């Protein structure tokens, strides 16, 4: 599952050395490696927030929001709620599943610290339906029986859909509703689960929190960049020798990340960073770019939740994009008109381009639809989809022209980007 090489020993903080074995690190082993967590009351809320601020830890769920700011905002309200969000909806992402499967105690330690930081007495662990539910349930019970955690979290699961991990969808689900995004405002840090201020943090962010409180903010900053410190988990897939999760310092070049996954299998055509709401980058330009917000922003991309997909010259980027947009259209919550109507229309038009339909105006139609759905939804599903589509039309422009002339360069028709057949929204 995970890919490890010599370098891993230096950079891996969260993932164990034997990650490739897929073996769970149980509580005894966990405490042997990291020591027992600080006893309740040993650290004040202010001290934890100050450490997080000094460390510069940002959210690892995709948005990269500074954790200290979220902690302060939630702590300022009454009866806050904390959620460990492990519902990664990106089909190309597996880092949260891997993290929870290997080092769940790190995440649960972090959840306790987050509760202490904001003064919460109510906490949740939120995961997709599947094998993690039983596993996490048993681990939470074990810790409760041993009296390790001042706040015993409740486990809640949601169907594995693209958008079920979106913050307001998480809150809706925890309030007993469907795991679908809700209208904003107010933001969940002001008014979330049963209208209380709610801290929703990705499970990887909480694992980093558990370590930085044990080891200090200086230690945390000893990896990564000045502006974006620490390490990050990356799900590397596509045309690489060893698909899986690697942990690298933030700001590691994309070429080094691909090397960590065994290197590119074939000639690199393009790289998708940030997942299906992310952006394609041309292979030649992508290799030297650092996987960080600062490094990717000038290229219209972000690291998102650490998804990196290599596409070789064997595969048609347009066909891959069309299939993913079809998947994304099906994953719409079907709550907002422009998304409900616009994404299927966009998928249909891209599908015609992919099938080498030579009707004039198809590319213009995709751009028109992109303009019609952008910023016209309750969540970022349409916006993220538009970013993905526009980057594809830019990076695969030559391939689009070839298709419009009836050709295609691909030699291998096998699907590279995963598009699971799950139901979308409320329908």
């Amino acid at each position, binding site marked *: 599952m995970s890919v490890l090489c010599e370098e891993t020993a230096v950079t891996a903080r969260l993932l164990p050395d034997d990650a490739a074995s897929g073996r769970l690190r149980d509580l005894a082993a966990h405490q042997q490696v990291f020591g027992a967590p600080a006893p309740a009351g040993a650290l004040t809320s202010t001290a934890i927030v100050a450490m997080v601020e000094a460390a510069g830890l940002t959210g690892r769920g995709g948005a990269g929001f500074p954790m200290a700011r979220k902690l302060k905002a939630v702590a300022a309200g009454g009866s806050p709620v904390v959620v460990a969000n492990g519902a990664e909806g990106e089909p190309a992402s597996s880092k949260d599943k891997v993290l929870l499967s290997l080092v769940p105690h790190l995440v649960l330690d972090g959840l306790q610290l987050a509760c202490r930081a904001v003064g919460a007495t109510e906490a949740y662990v939120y995961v997709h339906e599947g094998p993690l539910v039983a596993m996490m349930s048993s681990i939470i019970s074990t810790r409760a029986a041993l009296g390790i955690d001042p706040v015993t979290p409740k486990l809640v699961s949601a169907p594995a859909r693209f958008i079920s991990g979106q913050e307001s969808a998480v809150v809706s689900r925890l309030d007993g509703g469907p795991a679908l995004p*809700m*209208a904003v405002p107010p933001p969940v840090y002001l008014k979330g689960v049963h209208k209380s201020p709610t801290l929703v943090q990705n499970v990887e962010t909480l694992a980093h929190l558990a370590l930085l409180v044990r080891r200090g903010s200086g230690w945390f900053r000893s990896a990564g960049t000045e502006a974006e410190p620490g390490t990050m988990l990356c799900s590397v897939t596509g045309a690489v020798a060893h698909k899986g999760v690697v942990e690298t310092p933030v700001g590691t070049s994309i070429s080094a990340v691909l090397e960590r996954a065994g290197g590119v299998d074939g000639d690199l055509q393009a790289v998708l960073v940030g997942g299906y709401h992310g952006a394609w980058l041309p292979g030649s330009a992508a290799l030297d770019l650092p996987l960080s917000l600062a490094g990717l922003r000038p290229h219209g991309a972000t690291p998102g939740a650490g998804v990196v997909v290599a596409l070789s010259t064997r595969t048609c980027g347009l066909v891959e994009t069309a299939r993913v947009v079809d998947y994304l259209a099906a994953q719409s919550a079907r*709550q*907002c*008109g*422009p*998304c409900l*109507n*616009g994404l299927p229309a966009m998928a249909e038009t891209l599908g015609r381009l992919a099938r080498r339909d030579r009707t004039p105006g198809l590319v213009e139609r995709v751009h028109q639809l992109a303009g*019609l759905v952008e*910023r*016209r*939804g*309750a969540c970022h599903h349409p916006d993220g989809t538009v970013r993905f589509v526009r980057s594809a039309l830019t990076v695969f422009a030559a391939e689009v022209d070839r298709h419009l002339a009836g050709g295609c360069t691909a030699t291998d028709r096998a699907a590279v980007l995963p598009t699971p057949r799950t139901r979308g929204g409320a329908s």
Partner: protein
Amino acid sequence: MNQTLAVNWIACDGRGLCAELLPERITPDEWGFPVVDGHPMGPDLLPDARRAVAACPTLALRLAATGR
């Protein structure tokens, strides 16, 4: 104070009344959902804007001081 129109996209059904009452700022898209011109509303348009907000059968339209 400048005011702009904001749509609650989950509530909006695309009935189109707002576009009829405030064609200067709202046009229906190809599916009937409002495309809102984001420019701030001058005092001349505010009465019609308020009428459009009040007329929305799903209460999906509101006037906001800033942002969308």
